[in-house]
């Protein structure tokens, strides 16, 4: 997608935006740039400020500091006292509750924003029919909006937000009111629709699976601040902070001290001498980005459980980066085993084991921790 002359690639920019509720900062100095045609996700636990950020973009809240720029137009600036009301921002938004207006039919719900834009009736009919057909709601257009099912209501809310071709589509936890199966289906539908129409989307969710599967880029938020921005895979594999690491996916953590590097490894790989029952063992891993790891300092070794290699007790593997263990509990869940492996002392690891071989509780095995998959963090 090439940028047209005169327009920037950046659809939305936030520059040092803060929002206070009383004394507490719900959003604290957030800066972001959302590019044309991408799905950008704000991800974080509840109360992290992601929804407030979205509402600031929509114009439903006023920022206390900072500036918001939409397609080269400053729509909110605390210092310059600029504030464009939501109705003048040309945005589309899907609310968590869908906010399908109960006194209007499906058709009227979608036609409303077009009417506000002074469109002719014939043209409205044409556009509404087309967008309803796009999501398979054409037959329901005469029905009251609130008589639809959850999934249909969501499609309707989506139609209503897309029909006037907004510069940016805002999605506020749109899947959270759907059951698990429907959620998955809608996720795929939204992704296909987005690719087809090439719209830019700002998406808010607390669900990491949704975020990872839908987004081109994700901003993980924590306590009103952006912790890290990047493509899903990058965040998952190279988290920039302990918060991002623990929030996304499962993490196995082992404790130790930064020690001497075993032969055959070179920086940025760091060696960690384990504590407690595993004293004497040394594992190596990559140093986490931009952290200081002084020799002898307390350290955490982190790895995704699915990156741990599993091997039978025999034949023995090399000492480096392999640990022996005993299967404490084991449950067969169909496509794989769920296991809890005791490594000795307080160390336990919960992980999945492929069902290629039959395993039993009490069986001894060896776990491999590949250095390129391990990251080392200051404790």
């Amino acid at each position, binding site marked *: 997608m090439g940028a047209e002359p005169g327009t920037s690639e950046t659809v939305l920019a936030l520059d040092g935006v803060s929002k206070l509720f009383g004394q507490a900062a719900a959003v604290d100095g957030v800066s972001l740039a959302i590019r044309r045609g991408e799905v950008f996700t704000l991800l974080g636990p509840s109360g992290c400020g992601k929804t407030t950020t979205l509402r600031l973009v*929509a*114009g*439903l809240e*006023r920022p206390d500091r900072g500036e918001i720029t939409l397609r080269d137009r400053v729509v909110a600036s605390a210092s310059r006292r600029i504030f464009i*009301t*939501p*109705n*003048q*921002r*040309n*945005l*589309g*938004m899907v*609310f*968590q*509750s*869908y*906010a399908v*207006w*109960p*006194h*209007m039919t499906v058709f009227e719900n979608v036609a*409303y*924003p077009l009417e*506000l*834009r002074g469109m002719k009736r014939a043209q409205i009919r044409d556009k509404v029919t087309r967008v309803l057909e796009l999501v398979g709601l054409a037959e329901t257009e005469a029905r009251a909006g*609130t008589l639809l099912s959850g999934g249909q209501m969501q499609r309707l*809310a989506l139609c*209503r*937000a897309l029909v*006037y071709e907004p510069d940016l589509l*805002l999605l506020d936890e749109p899947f959270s009111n759907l059951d698990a199966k429907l959620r998955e289906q809608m996720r795929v539908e939204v992704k296909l629709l987005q690719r087809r129409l090439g719209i830019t989307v700002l998406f808010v969710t607390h669900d990491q699976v949704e975020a990872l599967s839908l987004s081109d880029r994700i901003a993980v938020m924590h306590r009103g601040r952006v912790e890290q921005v990047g493509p899903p895979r990058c965040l998952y594999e190279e988290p920039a902070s302990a918060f991002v690491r623990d929030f996304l996916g499962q993490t196995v953590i082992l404790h130790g001290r930064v020690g001497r590097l075993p032969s055959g490894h070179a920086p940025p790989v760091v060696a960690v001498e384990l504590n407690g029952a595993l004293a004497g063992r040394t594992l190596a891993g990559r140093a986490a980005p931009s952290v200081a790891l002084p020799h002898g300092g307390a350290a955490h070794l982190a790895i995704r459980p699915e990156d741990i290699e599993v091997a039978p007790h025999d034949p023995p593997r090399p000492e480096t980066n392999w640990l022996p263990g005993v299967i404490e509990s084991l449950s067969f869940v169909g496509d794989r085993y769920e296991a809890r492996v005791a490594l000795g002392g307080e160390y336990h690891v919960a992980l999945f084991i492929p069902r290629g071989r039959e395993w039993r509780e009490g069986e001894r095995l060896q776990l491999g921790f590949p250095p390129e998959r391990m990251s080392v963090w200051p404790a």
Partner: protein
Amino acid sequence: MAGLTQALPAAGPRRIELQTVLCTVVLAVVALCVVFPLVLVALQSLQVAPPGQPARYGLDGWRAALGEPGLRGALVNTFTVTFVRQLLSLPLAVLVAWLLARTDLPGRSWIEFAFWAAFFLPPFTVTLSWILLLDPEYGLVNTWLAKLPFVGGRPFNIYSFWGIVWVHIITGSLTVKVILLTPAFRNMNASFEEASRVAGAGGLRTALRITVPVMAPAILSVLLLGTMVSLQTFEVEQVLGLPFRFFVFSTTIYDLLVTRVPRYDAATALSVLILAGMLPLVFAQQWLTRGRRYTTVTGQFQSRVHALGAWRAPAMLLALALVLLVLGVPVVFALLGTFMKLFGFFHIPDPWTLENWTTVLGDEQFLRSLHNTLVLAVSTAVVTIVVHSLIAYIIVRTRYVGRRLLDFVSWLPFTVPGIILGLALLWLFLGVGILRPLYGTTAVLVIAGVIAGMPLGVQIIKSGLMQLGGELEEASRIAGASWWATYRRIVLRLMAPTLLAVGMITFVGAARNIGNFALLTTSANRPLSMLQLDYVAQRKFEEAVVVACIIMFVSLAGALVARLLGLRGGNVG
């Protein structure tokens, strides 16, 4: 499920039968007290013989109600006053409720509280206060305006159609709507409005095209309730209408009966006509609440408020002005009135005195009435708590077949204007032989008070029980408690504040009620509320305003206590 119930024959049915019998008894008693008297009224309208003479049947009463200009005029006046006051108060109430619930109006919780307090002001007291301001001769506003140039004399006359409408709007039409609509507006999902604003509509357009239509069922429901409530009182017309011979249905009925030769046939025929006119409202209201066509209430979503911006100051000014009119003026001027040598005459030299209070407090009539009122209000409150909680419990917690009917019958008194309910009960106690000894006792008034308070009391307890949820009781039963122990130790404990609040507002209601009692009081059981009316009839305004002031402070104190016990406008709807 059906198979299961059939498979268990012996154990269940007997207990269910006992419960059914008890519930049926309750339903029968409630129906006897509410529906039967109304049937008697309808029958009585065909009985044309004067009282004391053998019964003779005919259509004279109906001929009079439909034909006599005075009576027909009363019907027309009733309709016009009701229509005009609803028409004027509804848009204002919607605006105020919207400001209180959906905007950042400063001090909105205090303003809402002021409307709540104003709702409890006795209409009679408010009427007297406004006489001080708007009397055509000595009214303060008129006196002030007369001093200004360009104003031709004294423009206002409270003894007029517009005077009556004005006092009605102040005393009830506006406040009841505001306290019912504000919680409804507050519970609306804010996303409805936000979605519209993001879609491109401004604040005003969103209010007109989204907020008001979404709220339309609630607004309509409140309009119907407000119309029914507006027909409960008759003291405003009795005080303000009589001097210029302006009658509505209630004052006409009173006039027809409180004379030397009462005309029961005409009065009852008029009552039946009014009740028939209420029927469409009753059905519309039931239809609106049954259907629940829109689900506007979504508890899990935070309700966010609009910034008023530049409109903050004007909105604030409007709200404060309204609070001043509905609460400030009535309280201040009622109190001032009690200290006046001559009610309303501010311009005489040295107009102030304490004598009214000493006269009234020393008056034997007053002391007897005070005693009657205390006995009446306390008994009504106690009986109400027992009876209304029983009815509410049957409706909410049992599977009794007739619970829907019980629900409807217990709500029915809401739709029966006070004076007509009084007339119906009068007929019950005069017409049914074994009940006749009760006539003229306080017990009659207690029964009237319990019935009149039934719609509100049952409604409040019902919503309390529903919030309580059945699981708390079931857990207690499973833990080993009997039904009675569960009721005593779980339900009663948790419901105590609600029940006390209901008792409190019933106490207040009984202390200030005029419409229901007007036809049921004799000199033996006359409460304070009727005494003040008698004082006015004797043109003793100074004494009347003292009594009115006492009732007002009792009402405000009761309202405050009920509020502290957790009662809010939302429970009332």
